[in-house]
């Protein structure tokens, strides 16, 4: 069930990435796809995370003016790195996830820029200004999205809900024949 929810979240993230810049230009600095990929990687399922990274990256590349596969490359690598870190270090605390999403965003942009420069492509915008804005936008929105995901998506949340609203226990009706005994 969690897998289905995360897949739906990833599809929504790709659609948002495709459309939001047309509504408001500053929203381009929020990498919704990276936020969901990092969240998936933090769930310690590295296989799912890297597949998420590859396919969502390619979906963004398909509509971007950049090199096809550039986002696929960076997001796959980041998903793997984050999932490996999450396997070794306990990262269920929200405060620990903030530096992770910030670091992932920084690495994603540096790798993306580096791969394009390596293959002789020019890019618009100043490297450090773009990275700074992306870092702020993605970290702030990412943190808010993680709070939302933790409340609605994770198993922990459903366990908590089960604890708060336990199913009513029906007492077993005693056998009236044996009542006298």
């Amino acid at each position, binding site marked *: 069930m969690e897998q289905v929810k995360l897949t739906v979240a990833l599809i929504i993230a790709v*659609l948002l*990435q*495709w*459309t939001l*810049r*047309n*509504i408001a*230009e500053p929203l*381009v*600095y929020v990498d919704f796809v990276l936020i969901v990929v990092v969240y998936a990687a933090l769930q310690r399922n*590295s*296989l799912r995370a*890297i597949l998420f990274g*590859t396919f969502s*990256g*390619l*979906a*963004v590349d*398909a*509509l*971007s*003016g*950049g*090199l*096809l*596969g*550039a*986002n*696929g*490359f960076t997001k*796959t*690598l980041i998903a*793997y790195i984050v*999932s490996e870190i999450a*396997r070794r270090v306990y990262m269920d605390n929200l405060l620990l996830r903030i530096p992770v999403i910030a670091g992932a965003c920084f690495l994603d942009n540096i790798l*993306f*820029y580096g*791969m*394009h420069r390596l*293959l*002789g*492509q*020019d*890019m*618009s*915008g*100043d490297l450090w*200004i*773009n990275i700074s*804005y*992306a870092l702020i936008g993605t970290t702030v929105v990412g943190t808010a999205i993680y709070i939302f995901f933790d409340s609605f998506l994770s198993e922990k949340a459903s366990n908590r809900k089960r604890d708060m609203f336990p199913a009513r226990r029906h007492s077993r009706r005693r056998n009236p024949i044996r009542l006298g005994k």
Partner: protein
Amino acid sequence: MVERSQKEVWRLTPWLVLVLLLGNFILMAFSAKDITSGQRLIRVWGLTVADFVQSPVATISSGVTNYFRSIANLRSAQDENTDLKQKVEELQLELKAKEGLTAENERLKNLLDLKDQSKYKVLTARIIGRDPSLWFDSAVINQGSLNGVKLNMPVVANGGLVGRVTAVSPLTAQIDLLTRDKSGVGAVIGQVGTSNALGVVMGTSKNGLLEMKYVPGTTDVQVGQSVFTTGQDGIYPAGLKVGDIFDAKSYGSSQPYQILIQPAASLDSIQEVGVLLYEPPPTVPFDQKVSTPTKEKKK
């Protein structure tokens, strides 16, 4: 059993990552090779799929934006009304003077037997999407190959050049905006044929401004002069307005100018564009133009 399968997954993952990274890298390498010439199939598919999402979102968002804008506009309508009434009176006077000039113009045209004809057909299109990556300036329009749009067709808005078509799907097309560094436009300061201040206009990272390179320092360049396409780049027709000179720095007659241009069309806020149904004359590939001396000798 579960533990073992988990270990297998962990052992498998690095290999899968390597394969995926290699696959993506190969895609990038191919993409870098043919990014200027052909278009990639996956991009065409992406554009087609995205159209079903982007078109409704663009319609709804522009409707909501226009609604709030109209409310905001009502506030200043009273003052504007007074100003406009005054301007109408002034313009009426000007119009009467110009009517005479138009009639004279027509008469002279008839005398010279000239006919008004528009050079290119223009296809109106709406921008339904922008580049999802912050590193590039491209846009998606709601006209595609079914409407006659082809690769490298020029795109204009508000009387100025916006960019060119870089990918076409049946329903949509992707355009690269001029502000993108890679796009180079052959341009001239002043009208084509009357000026020798030729150069190449390229995108910069400075607030949507363009940069004109290779303009010789010996030419006279003034801030505010208009820049037009020369048609020598083999993509854009001659005579399209690129923009006006915003800043020009001279480093002596031996070095080229450093010129910044304000684009004629406001590239950040365009909603509607026109695609010029113009196809440049076919060019002969370089290797066919130059015959090798060895072959000539043999003949």
